[in-house]
């Protein structure tokens, strides 16, 4: 993301006073499209039973993944729930390692120990991939605590869904983060459904950005289908946290096109509703239109780009599938760091 905040070319788009170079717009577009095609491939591989367990896709939510990444520094911490493929791809982790993880291969990003729900990349400061709803929120607050403790100005971008926001751990975190002015941005990806339960059936206050009021945590609502708005508003929130003003809540209004997980036919919502978001508000189509209007690209170019990305994703899937499964000895790896060899349970053995 070397183009960040730099006017490297004359051409681009200016929105709300912020200039986005053509190069940067292309990078954002390509990453969103890459995530879309990657998730489609993952869905296909799941259908073929090559991916097991739970698998939560983020089709439709790509602008949130990419816009946030654009707004953050690589040294900022980021963590989310189990709907994590898009976020870790946007962070710049190796796609083959992500796909290999989905396939339970040795070269998976966590060595085949985690699968779809547990993507971690410490080098990229991506801390999961957390499987218990809301669990990552106190953890993200802890990363922010470490930033303040070390005074290293790193911001913790802690992401949850509209389902997770009803967990008690979230409010415990809001309170501590505000009390101690910790540099954390709490992002709520509001995709309208917590599994099969619509927001209005689960939340008395459906304006989730207001959920911090009791804790003096300011909140804003963002069109999560507009990657440029996401980038802009997230930049403001991150700056707020980095400057020592404490936490901020950013509610991203978004939508997932697929079910909650691969086993969810999503019968709790109408086809019309899905179509309305899909055809009317799709974040990729929206950016394409803006770029075509600005003369930065053409429909033909985008079609070619799509073909190229599909090919890339196929190659990634192929490479991941060609990898071996983890060695059986890996079963015993990484349980503890300081093994105590002469005490039971004995490291690396039964009995």
């Amino acid at each position, binding site marked *: 993301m070397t183009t960040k905040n730099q006017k490297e070319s004359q051409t681009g788009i200016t929105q709300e006073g912020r200039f986005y170079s053509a190069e940067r717009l292309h990078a954002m577009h390509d990453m969103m499209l890459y995530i879309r095609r990657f998730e489609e491939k993952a869905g296909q591989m799941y259908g073929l039973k090559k991916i097991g367990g739970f698998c939560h896709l983020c089709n439709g939510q790509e602008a949130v993944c990419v816009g946030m990444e654009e707004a953050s520094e690589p040294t900022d911490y980021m963590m989310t729930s189990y709907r994590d493929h898009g976020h870790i791809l946007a962070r710049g982790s190796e796609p083959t390692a992500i796909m290999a993880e989905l396939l339970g291969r040795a070269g998976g990003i966590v060595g085949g120990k985690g699968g779809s729900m*547990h993507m971690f990349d410490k080098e990229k400061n991506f801390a999961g991939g957390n499987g218990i709803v809301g669990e990552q929120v106190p953890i993200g*607050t802890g990363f922010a605590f470490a930033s303040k403790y070390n005074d290293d100005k790193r911001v913790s971008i802690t992401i949850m869904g509209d389902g997770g926001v009803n967990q008690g751990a979230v409010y*415990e975190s809001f*309170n*501590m983060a505000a009390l101690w002015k910790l540099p954390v941005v709490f992002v709520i990806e509001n995709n309208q459904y917590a599994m099969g339960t619509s927001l209005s059936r689960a939340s008395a206050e459906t304006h989730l950005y207001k959920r911090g009021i009791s804790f003096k945590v300011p909140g804003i609502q963002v069109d999560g289908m507009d990657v440029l708005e996401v980038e802009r508003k997230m930049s403001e929130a991150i700056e707020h946290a980095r400057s020592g003003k404490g936490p901020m809540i950013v509610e991203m209004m978004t939508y997932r096109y697929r079910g909650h997980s691969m086993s969810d036919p999503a019968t709790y919502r109408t086809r019309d509703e899905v179509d309305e978001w899909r055809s009317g508000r799709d974040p990729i189509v929206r950016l394409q239109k803006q770029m075509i209007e600005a003369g930065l690209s053409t429909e033909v170019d985008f079609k070619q780009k799509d073909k190229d990305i599909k090919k890339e994703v196929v190659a990634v899937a192929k490479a991941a599938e060609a990898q071996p499964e983890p060695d059986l000895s890996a079963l015993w790896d*990484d349980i503890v760091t*300081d093994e105590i060899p*002469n005490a039971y349970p004995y490291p690396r053995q039964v009995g």
Partner: protein
Amino acid sequence: MAKITYREALNQAMCQEMERDERVFLMGEEVAEYNGAYKVSQGMLDKFGPRRVIDTPITELGFAGLGVGAAMAGLRPVIEFMTWNFAILAADQIVNAAAKMKYMTGGQYDCPMVFRGAGGAAARVSSQHSQAFENWYANIPGLKVVMPSNPADAKGLLAASIRDNDTVIFIENEMNYGDIGEVPEGEYIIPLGKADIKRVGSDVTLIAHSRMTGYALLAAEELAKQGIDAEVVDPRTIRPLDEATILASVAKTNRAVVIEEGWRFAGIGAEISARIMEKGFDDLDAPVARVTGKDVPMPYAANLEKHALPSVAEIVEAARVVCNRA
């Protein structure tokens, strides 16, 4: 060696490690300005300041999780639970996050931290404040469980736990905080995973941890009067367990009683007696006996409470049974 209390020994261990390692901090309810609900952190706020000794709201799940994140980010948190009864609120972060983080991330993230606080039965506080949970945590891969029975062990084991690179469940005993004992001055470390023979004997092995070690020693004195020479083994670290020391003792005495304050079903005694059966069967001259807390929630009334807990008399009786002297 100076004679100090169990709580002062714990305090020394934390101060020693905080002076040594800038990454170590103490967080919990009332640890700073109040000097600790049990005064374990007495004077630490003055010594280290509010950056490193931090009072929290009453928010166990939140600050346990904050500790997990801080550990993942490179700090070495010591998270105090006022008592382990309240840690149940934080079980998700301990069990689902801390214990599994290293494994689930393919070794990328460590979780080097200590969760510590008072466990076991206190005095006259009824069901919700008098419980032993070591068997819960000892069941979980990724955790270590440490329980000191005297002031010297409290210092050496807590220091070792803070230096350990994994998540340590450090369970102190509420009734032991005022106990006085000789404790080495200066830096003192007891390696984890090492049992200690608290009394040498030849007729029967009494295996007991935490507060029950003291009960076992009292029982051994009574047994000596009756001509039975008991050996008392304190595992000190519950997980991983130094079974070699236990088995060596049983090989010598051929008889064993396991004592724990917690409930019998799937307890620590069940695990230890199973290990003796699996690996020391031929050494046994009698079935292993267990003395445990009664299978009831802790009652308030003094007589009922006393009856619910293991007693020295019960340990003596169990030892006499396994020695065919009952």
